[in-house]
């Protein structure tokens, strides 16, 4: 355990970079295909129509902002907490779609527009994947001090200790 904790700053860096990559690959196709993203949001049948468009516009931008924060390591803890909150929201949305018997793609990495006859394997895969990302976000929020980060440069972690 002690040895692991010696590596912790590098592990946090690795987790940051993985989640940043996730946000860029998920956020960019959503950001460039706004109408498709809005249709994906609507397909979950969770939000009232008045909120569907603002949500479809806002989510991809938030994902990209979080990606930038994580890659440069600025505000690491708050970025990780927001990442975890979004993962919990996605997990809820996917579980809801499954529980309602909806046949949809989650649109997590952009709206593909392809029909699904049996959505359950997709739901299971999405849930397991998002649980993994949630664990990474929780690790970062627990130990936000990391190498190659702006936070460390700005002196937010004297002696590598989280205040």
């Amino acid at each position, binding site marked *: 355990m002690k040895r692991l904790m010696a590596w912790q700053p590098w592990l946090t860096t690795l987790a940051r970079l993985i989640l940043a990559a996730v946000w860029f690959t998920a956020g960019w196709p959503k950001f460039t295909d706004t109408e498709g993203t809005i249709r994906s949001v609507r397909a979950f049948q969770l939000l009232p129509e008045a909120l569907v468009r603002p949500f479809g*516009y*806002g989510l991809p931008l*938030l994902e990209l902002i979080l990606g930038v924060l994580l890659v440069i390591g600025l505000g690491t803890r*708050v*970025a990780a907490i927001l990442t975890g909150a979004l993962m919990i929201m996605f997990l809820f949305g996917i579980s809801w779609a499954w529980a309602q018997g909806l046949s949809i793609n989650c649109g997590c990495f952009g*709206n593909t527009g392809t029909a*699904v006859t049996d959505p359950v394997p997709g739901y299971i895969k999405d849930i397991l994947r998002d649980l993994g990302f949630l664990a990474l976000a929780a690790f970062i929020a627990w130990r936000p001090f990391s190498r190659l980060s702006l936070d460390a440069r700005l002196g*937010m972690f004297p002696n590598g200790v989280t205040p």
Partner: protein
Amino acid sequence: MTNARAAKSTREKAAELRAEAARAEAKRKQLTITGAIAALIVVILGSYLLITKAKDDADARTAAANASPANLTNGGYLYGSSTAKVTLELYEDFLCPACKNAEAANGTQIEEWVKDGTVKVIYKPVAILDHASTDDYSTRSLNAAAAVINTKPEAFVAFHKALFDNQPAEGGPGLPDAKLVELAVAAGADKATIESAITGKTFENWTVKATEEFSKAGYNATPTFVVNGTKVASSDPAVVKAAVDAAAKS
């Protein structure tokens, strides 16, 4: 207490105070940076939402000012007798390979149903795959279909078939406008009018509206077959036939 001991204790105390001050300083920095980032996110997201809202409102005004194509029945192109008992709505994207397959698998059967008067088809093409071509082919082909319906509705079925027969692969460029014009003319449209509507994207706003209505109706993928208002589980010919037969009997 000896003097040496007292000095050490003072040194320790001073070090402790310095560490305490450093921790407090770091904590203050944490709060400032966290607050600044949170505020920045709120400001960026907020202004972006205001901008997109303004854009949506402007688009809605343009769409209202622009006409929908003429000759639409219930938002689509009616093929068959309007008194047929069974209504089969077909939502398709001209770039969607599964739609091409569904057309090939169900085409003959649908043709028979229309001929014997059991089924009327309402073609409701949509544009959901613009991200899958390099030149917004879904929107361009849908605009071309709307232009054909607008000026020469009886050419639509042939044009629709020609678009699937000449379907480009996903991931690259779609058919160029000149090819769309050529196919429309071959299907029976008048060259001069169709050319200006295709190159001028006359019905682009309508394509957005038609696609949005598809989404608002609760559909999110193509092909979607709807029989008398109920979505068919798949476009498999046996499944479609079962749904149509049941609707014809009811």
